[in-house]
């Protein structure tokens, strides 16, 4: 019998919570070591996924299925394909690093913090492996609570409560509408086929009348667009990022935002392909607005964390643009860009967290000339900055290049406007980097800053390894997603033939 790796991944953190609960709450180091051990075990357990993954097939792998609520058609049904594989690996890789990053950062209520972190981990992996709509929804919501607590309890005292509640309400708003949409879909599927089920794979390729697809796409899309976040729904992000503790920002940026884009890829587009084609202009334009707007706003930020937060809006705009091209390079680029953003932005938040630990400020004006006291820090910061900008040879370039390539095939104007985002990115990132790292040390407090410790270097080492790896030899990662992408594109191609115009929709003629 095959080992149920995915279930172990989902439930190991929960077992870990049980272990943490019986440990002494006063021994902070012990708690942190225990959490680190659990997250490392989790990482090791996830490795077989990578090595035993069959990249020739688009079918779900490592599938497990147990009845949960059989009379309702709900089952515990998990499995992965190329899309989720990369995101799961990203999650299991980042979590131990996050635990390491809390070593000096978190000093009060350590036990609760670690419990939240592990709960978050279980929820994130659960979202990526679920193949049952109900199960997916449960994980999607469950994950809200620990993140809310991370922001609200360990965040910046001044505005953490505001940010936490805003985060919770925004996400909840989207997901509640998605719940209604899931139910409508469930009953529609049950009525047309006679079997009532929440099985996602069965939902693929059902013929849903266009009128219904239209609304379903919007309802699901709203939930995911808020999470991504796409342009008009992004306002929770800067607040949540800025107020969250370092680790909260890292996880939020690296993994939680990907749930939105992953949701589009896994749920929205394959389930409602005709509506997806119909909405290409809307979502592409919103993505482009996000790219340019995020970049422009980043340029004017005085707070490092806020700057990175807005740059996320811009980067995620690229991902969305790529996914909505429905071309091979566009979609693959989108997926690889999700991972890139997780690595680079995660690293950037860690970097800001580390200088915040030393100086207790995140304002750009308070720094300057940091390369003199902290040379190693400056080097790492530079690599990550360049990766985020998209320098050839580093990961960002691969993702953005593929996305722009895909976009160019579909719509040249979009590609041209989006490409300006890359230029703006260079502007705001390099300008920020220059103001923080180069020049003379203007502030006396910065003169004696300690350079990175071995622990801190150890956090960055794996991140930088992958930043370079993806930049130099992306095929390792692209190959894993190839079969899934082809399958996805074939599905989308099939639905392309139906042309529907807006007037049809509102006259109710569209079927």
């Amino acid at each position, binding site marked *: 019998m095959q080992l149920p790796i995915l279930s172990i991944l989902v439930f190991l953190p929960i077992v870990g919570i049980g272990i943490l609960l019986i440990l002494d709450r006063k021994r902070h180091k012990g708690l942190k070591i225990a959490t680190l051990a659990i997250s490392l075990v989790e990482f090791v357990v996830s490795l077989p996924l990578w090595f035993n993954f069959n990249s020739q097939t688009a079918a779900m792998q490592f599938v497990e299925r147990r009845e*949960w*609520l*059989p*009379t*309702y058609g709900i089952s515990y049904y998990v499995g992965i394909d190329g899309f989720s594989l990369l995101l799961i690996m990203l999650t299991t890789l980042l979590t131990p690093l996050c635990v390491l990053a809390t070593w000096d950062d978190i000093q009060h*209520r350590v036990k*609760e913090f670690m419990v939240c972190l592990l709960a978050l981990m279980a929820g994130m992996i659960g979202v990526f492996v679920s193949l049952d709509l*109900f199960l997916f*929804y*449960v994980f999607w*919501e*469950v994950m*809200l*609570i620990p993140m*809310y*607590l991370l922001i*609200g*309890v360990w965040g910046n005292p001044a505005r*953490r*409560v505001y940010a*936490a*509640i805003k985060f*919770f*309400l925004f996400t*909840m*708003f989207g997901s*509640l*509408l998605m*719940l*209604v949409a899931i*139910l*409508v879909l*469930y*009953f529609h599927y049950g009525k047309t086929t006679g079997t009532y089920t929440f099985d996602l794979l069965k939902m693929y390729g059902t013929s849903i009348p266009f009128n219904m697809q239209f609304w379903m796409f919007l309802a699901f899309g709203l939930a995911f667009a808020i999470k991504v976040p796409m342009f008009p729904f992004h306002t929770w992000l800067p607040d949540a990022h800025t107020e969250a503790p370092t680790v909260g920002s890292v996880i939020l940026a690296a993994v939680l935002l990907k749930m939105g884009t992953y949701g589009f890829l896994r749920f929205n587009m394959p389930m409602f392909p005709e509506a997806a084609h119909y909405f290409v202009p809307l979502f592409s334009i919103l993505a482009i607005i996000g790219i340019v707007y995020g970049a422009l706003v980043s340029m004017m930020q005085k707070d490092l964390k806020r700057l990175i937060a807005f740059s996320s809006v811009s980067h995620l705009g690229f991902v969305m643009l790529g996914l909505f091209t429905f071309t091979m390079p566009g979609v693959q680029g989108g997926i690889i860009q999700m991972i890139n953003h997780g690595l680079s932005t995660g690293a950037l938040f860690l970097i800001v967290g580390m200088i915040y630990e030393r100086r207790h400020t995140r304002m750009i004006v308070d720094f300057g000339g940091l390369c003199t006291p902290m040379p190693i820090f400056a080097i790492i910061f530079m690599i990550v900055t360049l990766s985020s900008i998209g320098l050839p040879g580093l990961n960002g370039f691969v993702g953005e290049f593929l996305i722009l390539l895909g976009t160019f095939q579909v719509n040249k104007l979009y590609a041209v406007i989006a490409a300006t985002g890359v230029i703006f990115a260079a502007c705001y990132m390099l300008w920020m980097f220059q103001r923080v790292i180069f020049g003379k040390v203007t502030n006396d407090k910065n003169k004696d800053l300690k350079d990175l410790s071995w622990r801190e270097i150890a956090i960055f080492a794996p991140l930088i390894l992958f930043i370079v790896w993806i930049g130099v030899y992306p095929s390792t990662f692209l190959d894993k997603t190839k079969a899934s992408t082809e399958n996805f594109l074939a599905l989308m191609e099939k639905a392309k033939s139906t042309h529907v115009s807006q007037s049809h929709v509102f006259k109710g003629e569209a079927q």
Partner: protein
Amino acid sequence: MTFTIPSFHLSSIGPWLTLTVTAILILVLDALSPKGRKVCFSWLALAGLAVAAFQTIGLWGSTGTDFVRMVYLDNFAFFFYFIFILGAALTVLISRQYLEDYGKNMGEYYALILFATVGMMLMAAGAHLIMIFLGLEIMSIAVYVLAGLFREDLRSNEAALKYLILGAFSSAFLLFGMAMLYGASGGTLFLDDLPLRLGADPAMAYLVLLGVGLLIVGFGFKVAAAPFHMWTPDVYEGAPTSVTAFMAVAVKAAAFAAFARVFFLAFPAIKVDWTMVLWVMAVATMTIGNVAALSQTNIKRMLAYSSIAHAGYLLMALVAANQLGAVSLLYYLLAYTLMNLGAFGVVILVGRKKDRYINIYDYSGLGAQHPVLAASMALFMFALAGIPPTAGFVGKFYVFSAAVQAGYIWLAIIGVMNSLVSVFYYLRITVLMYMKPAEADLGPVVFSPAQTAVVALTAAGVLAIGIFPGSLYNLAMNAVKIFPGL
């Protein structure tokens, strides 16, 4: 003239008899025991409830009617018996220490709880409108007295008086509605006979509608549905906290039991009419409840408005009027009993002696002082807000699916948006507990064993039936088979 006594089986009303006898025994013992001597009435009451529960298990699965078709024997009723017994038992457990602090640990309190429970059972099993009315009155009168238990306290007095006067009005409406139906049906009030007899004479159609409308008023009052909810915040705030908990769960469940049975069984022919009215009431109830709860600073008042909002969600299940709706009603009421009683258990514990601390700001910093207590309260709040993996989520999931299945997609959307509003005020409690420092030292929380047990049991229950809802769903499905029209 000869009378023949129709045959009946006392065992079919076993749980009622047990509880009545226990209540009378408690009263007698209370009267006979010398002043100042403590008799453990609460244990006696619990024993009675346990026996009643066993009798209900024995009855489970039996069908038909008894006592000249006056009493239904069906799983729908028995499922509700369990809810009432659970509600009453948990109430008894949280009451003892609370009442002793007030010097009110009296026998009649427990007797009244048991009498009210008997009334509820009559309502759930009544096969004749008059039986349902009798049950409603038995329950209501006991609860009127309970609300005014602290007779030296002005608020408690106000609560009791308000509840009595408004409750009497609503009973009158209900009775008047029944009279209309009696006329319209040509002289019967058996639920089984009503559907056929009501449709017999088209000239009576308006009379039927009038009667049904009056019934909605009567039941709407008991479940605290808008616009008949005005009494709720004042009564819930003024009544002793343990009684509030009892009212919020058991009384509401009983009223919904009767509401659902009467409407599903007797009026399927005019479903279009009453679902329309209930649709409006459901929307109004949840919106008013949730919006008003936003601005409350007294935790009892907040929970009062939240219970109004939950009545709104439950009305959605009635509006859906399908099998799933009935199932969701049963499941939701059980889940609600657990999570709400748990929340009130925490309110009593945090209130310390004599409800001193029932402002929501008194919860500031609780997360640091009493992590486990705060975590349970957070769990109940998340459950009431309907966030997985709790019973509250599954309950809402069922209710919304019932509404969607019946085609009320807008109602479901309004429902979920209301949940969103409710998230805000439930979250505020967790914000206070975890993210704000304590404002003042309120002194230690005294954990009495019984109250702690209630909080622990309900917390475990909320999680257990939230994560594994399967078997309960099947039980509820089995229980609603009695509604052929759905």
